[in-house]
């Protein structure tokens, strides 16, 4: 085995046996997958009828139903709007991720907040319409990718500042009652399953509003998500605050800084920087959890995929539908994990 690449060379005989066994187990799976994706595939240019004969992936289904899988029941002639909204939201997420992990010139916190507000507002306007001659589209028809992105990015964008406030409220020692309330809130929100929170949002939140005012389900779910994720962000940031050496606060204090600027300019920037890896972790969790909204009737990607293969003509294509959205979640989560790893490396380097 002398010419074997060093990192592939097994360290010992048991390691060799385990590797071979794992390989043997993986081979049939890999072969099956390869057969499905390549050998037995019905390519986009093949006639759709072929799908009934071949066992492989049915591309004609995907090409025909792509609009439905990604945008659901959004009016067909207005598809450019959810398309644009999704693109904007994706671009926002990618740019923010790259900035945070140190690529390109990073805008300040205020710039970042402004950009997020502008893009989220633009996405809302694009989806909802009703201004500048755009036809209004009810939120029940915002399906698939844009609603997933809107809910995940919107909840992260609003839960984060709320989390900062909660963390500060829990850490401060001036007002015991506030600290206690914040702790209660955080522990309750973290102790309750996401589904309960979603059901509460859909069924209980509207009851709490003055009668007559209707809260669209998307908005109710968004509020529920924000309140849920804020608790997790709060704990991430509190961990960052706790990790700061005591001298930082005291040095800032001795320099004559007010409480507000001590927090805003010395402690929080450092705490958030230290907490970034765990914050990214929470963001990935929040993003994946967003697909749970399907159980309260929001048509996110899983629901629209089901719409696509519930068409009587494409009954057999469930696997293709889930394959597409699986691929989407895999790629987007891989990107988020990459950002997380880069952040961790940068933290370790300093």
């Amino acid at each position, binding site marked *: 085995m002398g010419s074997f690449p060093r990192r592939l060379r097994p360290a010992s005989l048991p390691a060799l046996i385990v590797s071979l066994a794992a390989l043997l187990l993986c081979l049939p799976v890999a072969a099956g997958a390869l057969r499905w994706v390549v050998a037995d595939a019905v390519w986009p240019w093949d006639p759709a009828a072929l799908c009934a004969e071949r066992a492989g992936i049915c591309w004609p289904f995907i090409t025909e139903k792509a609009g439905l899988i990604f945008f659901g029941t959004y009016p067909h002639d207005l598809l450019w709007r959810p398309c644009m909204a999704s693109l904007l939201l994706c671009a926002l997420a990618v740019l923010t991720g790259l900035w945070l992990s140190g690529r390109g010139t990073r805008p300040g916190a205020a710039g970042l907040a402004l950009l997020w507000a502008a893009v989220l507002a633009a996405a809302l306007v694009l989806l909802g319409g009703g201004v500048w001659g755009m036809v209004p589209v009810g939120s029940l028809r915002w399906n698939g990718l844009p609603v997933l992105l809107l809910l995940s990015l919107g909840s992260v964008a609003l839960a984060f500042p709320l989390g900062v406030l909660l963390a500060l409220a829990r850490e401060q020692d001036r007002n015991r009652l506030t600290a206690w309330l914040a702790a209660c809130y955080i522990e309750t929100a973290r102790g309750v399953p996401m589904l309960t929170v979603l059901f509460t949002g859909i069924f209980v939140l509207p009851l709490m509003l003055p009668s007559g005012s209707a809260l669209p389900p998307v908005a109710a779910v968004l509020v529920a998500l924000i309140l849920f994720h804020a608790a997790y962000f709060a704990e991430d940031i509190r961990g960052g605050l706790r990790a700061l050496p005591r001298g930082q606060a*005291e*040095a*800032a*204090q*001795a*320099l004559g800084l007010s409480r507000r600027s001590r927090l805003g300019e*010395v402690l929080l920037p*450092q705490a958030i920087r230290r907490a970034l890896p765990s914050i990214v972790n929470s963001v990935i969790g929040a993003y994946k959890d967003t697909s749970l909204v399907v159980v309260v009737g929001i048509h996110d990607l899983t629901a629209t995929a089901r719409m696509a293969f519930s068409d009587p003509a494409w009954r057999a294509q469930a696997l293709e539908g889930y394959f597409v959205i699986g691929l989407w979640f895999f790629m987007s989560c891989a990107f988020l994990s990459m950002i997380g790893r880069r952040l961790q490396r940068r933290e370790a380097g300093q």
Partner: protein
Amino acid sequence: MVEAATLSIGAGECLCLLGPSGCGKSTTLRMIAGVERPDAGEVRLDGVRVSAPGLHVPPEARSVGLMFQDFALFPHLNVARNVAFGLDGPRPARHARAMDLLERVGMARFAAAFPHELSGGEQQRVALARALAPRPRLMLMDEPFSGLDNRLRDGIRDQTLALLREEGTAVLMVTHEPEEAMRMADRIVLMRAGRIVQTGAPHEVYNRPVDRAAAAFFSDINLLQGRVRNGAVATPLGSFAAPGLAEGEAAEVVSRPQHLEIGGHGAARGRVLRARFLGRESLVEFVLEGDGPRLQAMVPGMVLPAPGEVFALGLRPENCHVFARTG
């Protein structure tokens, strides 16, 4: 824990709180800074009470500078912004003041660098510039040099002191190193177990220790024991007056190794146990003949007698301190 401490610092003075670790010197400093609250007692700055029972002026309103052992620079800000951080007023003025201070500590060319890119000595200078920037009336420094390389330390101490003098800032410094305190302080406040033991100019504290432990804190000591007879303690090295001690009381005579005289007309004879050359001076250890106590002598230059050699040993009364025996 600080039990009882009363001290005052004059304008432009450099006062050192000196003591072993855990003696309460850092706590004293932190109470003056206002980051710790005393249970009782007062702190006044320029005659104004800033801390008293029921009164606590927060540190940011006290106009004191605080320097830490680990410097506590803000890692997310560059050097110039670190220094300008505590300043008020328009941005150009703040920047000018920050750059002026950086210039004076010799760090102007690092203005754009971040703290983690600097060496310990450089960080110390930035921390000094930062603490001085808001023109504090009093500078509090907690072991400010102990994180530094031994050979850098002397130079940085002198520069620091010079800059503090220029700014006219009173300094209260905490250290556990007697050499550092002797080098920097106008007055030394020696602390032990939460109490002040002795206060005075370095030469006073060194030459007139109040007890055996105060003497032993500055150097090794030679100890001779005896009982008071006719107002004096008789020892193998002679008789030493014991003012203030009762007749018949157990007493000890404390002296420093450099005061043990070798080869004079001393009455006692000591046998050399071993001798070590330390560079500037030599350390010779004796045992008094007749199985007496061991004594150390610090002799300038290279003096290396062979073990077993016997010398006459002497001790002048003016170099000795007689205390009631403790422990």
